[in-house]
């Protein structure tokens, strides 16, 4: 039963990924546009065993995206700090990097919503005495994103909602809510052909 449930969950994620990428497929050719985004989000961790020990800082995020066959290919990097709130746990800094596919649905000329799936790695450095582990640690995560925005030809202001699951031994479930700005650059044909 557990296996069927897991299979169902995975198929749903893959189906949603395909849905976000195929049914609303970009008409723009690969690498014709490059978008650079920056955002800040408040972070919430829902798991008690984490939230009792650490408070998460705001997430600072930078991403680059470009049209890529089934949607937009995006690369992310973001920073989140784990600050002790019980006075005993050690503070951590995390660097998170990810790639993902997303798609944009335009409702009007000015309103659009981006949705997508990311897979990435959370990297933390640990320097704790008596810990029987490597000091650098990288852990897998996946995330779902929704980003409604107001756009012009070159700039897009957007709100950002993200659910992220990090596959530590004690799983982390995080939610992020924030806002950002995205700058759109049109790639000259020479560069586009070079990249492709």
């Amino acid at each position: 039963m557990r296996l069927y449930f897991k299979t169902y969950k995975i198929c749903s994620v893959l189906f949603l990924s395909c849905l976000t990428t195929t049914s609303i497929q970009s008409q723009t050719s690969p690498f014709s546009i490059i978008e650079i985004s920056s955002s800040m989000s408040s972070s919430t961790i829902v798991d008690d065993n984490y939230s009792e020990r650490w408070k998460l800082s705001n997430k600072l995020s930078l991403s680059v995206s470009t049209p890529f066959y089934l949607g937009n290919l995006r690369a992310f990097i973001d920073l989140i700090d784990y600050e002790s709130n019980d006075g005993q746990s050690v503070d951590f800094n995390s660097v998170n990097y990810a790639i993902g596919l997303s798609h944009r649905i335009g409702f009007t000329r000015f309103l659009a919503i981006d949705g997508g799936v990311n897979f990435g790695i959370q990297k933390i450095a640990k320097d704790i005495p008596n810990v029987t582990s490597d000091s650098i640690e990288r852990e897998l995560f996946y995330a779902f994103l929704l980003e409604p925005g107001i756009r012009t030809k070159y700039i897009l202001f957007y709100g950002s909602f993200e659910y992220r699951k990090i596959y530590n031994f004690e799983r982390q479930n995080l939610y992020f809510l924030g806002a950002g700005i995205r700058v759109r650059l049109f790639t000259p044909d020479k560069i586009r052909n070079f990249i492709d």
Partner: protein
Amino acid sequence: MRFKLFTYLFLLSLSFGSSSLFAQKVVLRADQTNSLLYNLEEWIFNNANIPFRTYDFGSFEAYSPGYTYGINTDFLILIDGIPYNSAWLSNDYLTLPNLNFSDIDSVVIDYDEHITKNNTYPAYSINIHTKKTGNYISVETARLNQINDPGTFGGASPNVEFVNFPTNVMLNLKRGNYNSLFAFTSELYSRTGQLGYNKSIQPGLFDRTEAPFEESEFEAQRNHQQNFLWLQSLTSENYDINLMGASYISNQFYEWHRVSGIEAPYSLEQYQLSAALDLKNSTFYEGTNFSYSSGVSDTLDYKSPAVLALSEFSLSQSSRFTLPLKSLPINLTLSNKYYSIKDKITDSSYDHHSYAFTIEGFLRNELKTKITFGNDIQSIIFQKPLSNTSSLQFSTFNQLVGKNSYNYSLHNRGIGFSNLQENSNQLINNSEFRQAYSQLKWLARLQNDKHSFTGFAFLRHYWKLPNELIQYTPNTNSLQLDTELSYFDSSNDGLFVIQTYLTSHYSESLRFKTMLGGNFFLYGNTTFRDHYLSIPAITFSESIQYIVDENFILELFYKYVPVRTLNEYENLEELTGFPPKQVRKISMLNFSSGMWFFNKTLELKFTLRNLLNNTESYDTNGMYYSMSVYVSGKINFNF
């Protein structure tokens, strides 16, 4: 239940039309697969649906269809047609240079039992064909990282920062009829057996190979292996000359030593040089293969006892001739091999010379016959086409395996087992070490516009078969387990084996590949039957590939292997609880994507392995793997 599942999967794989030719080779095209796997060995085995046993994906015991005593991996490995020595120091476990599969052209698995060039016993073969297209250099590095790290919680679970860290560089130079290929590959991976690795399971055995670096007592120890491969070819209208040089070096290697019941830390160096001459227009002499191989291992003296300090040497050659008799050509192969191994601790040595010749031709127009006669092997094979899509084969083999038996031949002479203790490591021998069997095999290949099917099935009856049993018992006063290794003969054992491969493409962008194998014990000795439970009865895999664009591919790969039983752990499980004798089923789903940029100069691949997050393990004493992410970057320069 196994038969029901097997029947269902078999019917599923046969639901299509047919026509066309006969052969019995399975060809894996590197450009028709995308999923990153642990290394080249696993890539071959998974894509050819070959079941295997491994502790750590570093070395493999691959199960060929049926069962062959004393040769854990009886596939012969060839690179561009030249035999590659994939096992060293009489160890049967198979290791290959970890070439990136996108750097090879194809892999051909040949399911005909035949003497393949330098070898003197008939076996199936795996032939790796490299790309020889122009001048290019490629550099690849990758990381495989699995989940369940402790994260911000310090000691919740051990942090294995990465499971494998492969690197490889390949350079191909082509000028006129000359082609030179150089490859360097390196793997750094989490090491082997839990009994020598996991302190919480057997503290005493763990102490044996506890981290050698005092200041970093808890640092995860890894196996590190490096391969170098050189292939040189010269082609002309009349002949081909191929040369191969290869080396394998591991300065720090940990291996669970099955008979001694202990983990052995050692260093290993192995070198080989091969040459092949093929004449194209000759009416008599066709060509010669020659191979030289040597290896040396030294024990890493962490804590006594020392285990492996060996040196070995082998020299082999084979020559092929055609005899034009009665307008039907007869092929003749003469092969011989000299092998020598020495234990530097006990000063004992063993050497053996084996030879064989094979005659292959047609008794009548369509009855193909192959006869092999040698000092270790005698066999005869008849094959007759039933139609243009299938044929029937009958064969009989008689093989002396004592000379090839690692455990018996070497253990009995005190080679490689210098750490054995008289009172706790027992050898009981009641066997002639001869296997004799007959088999009836049906094989087919069908093809139409959308589907391609290759398959075979055989019934095998063993007239005589040596059996090996290992049992461990814990010993609290020793750094090694007590072991009892016994040999006995059984007779009149029967097997049924089937392998099917179906590839389908419904459009240019969608490809399916369905593979199903069955390996069933039918009748015979109960101990052999119990042993046979260690071999997967069914192996099934399916891959679905969506080619979005020539620069973007998505793939789903699924593999199923049922529960197996390793009876050698029965006592240990009863007395200590670990390792359990039952190996969990494998139900593994991978999702992968491949992307190419800058006119294929940059290749990025991403695989989520084991998405169902079922614990993946191929030996209960080996590593246990969870879901993992595999990222690879590769740069290709053509010049």
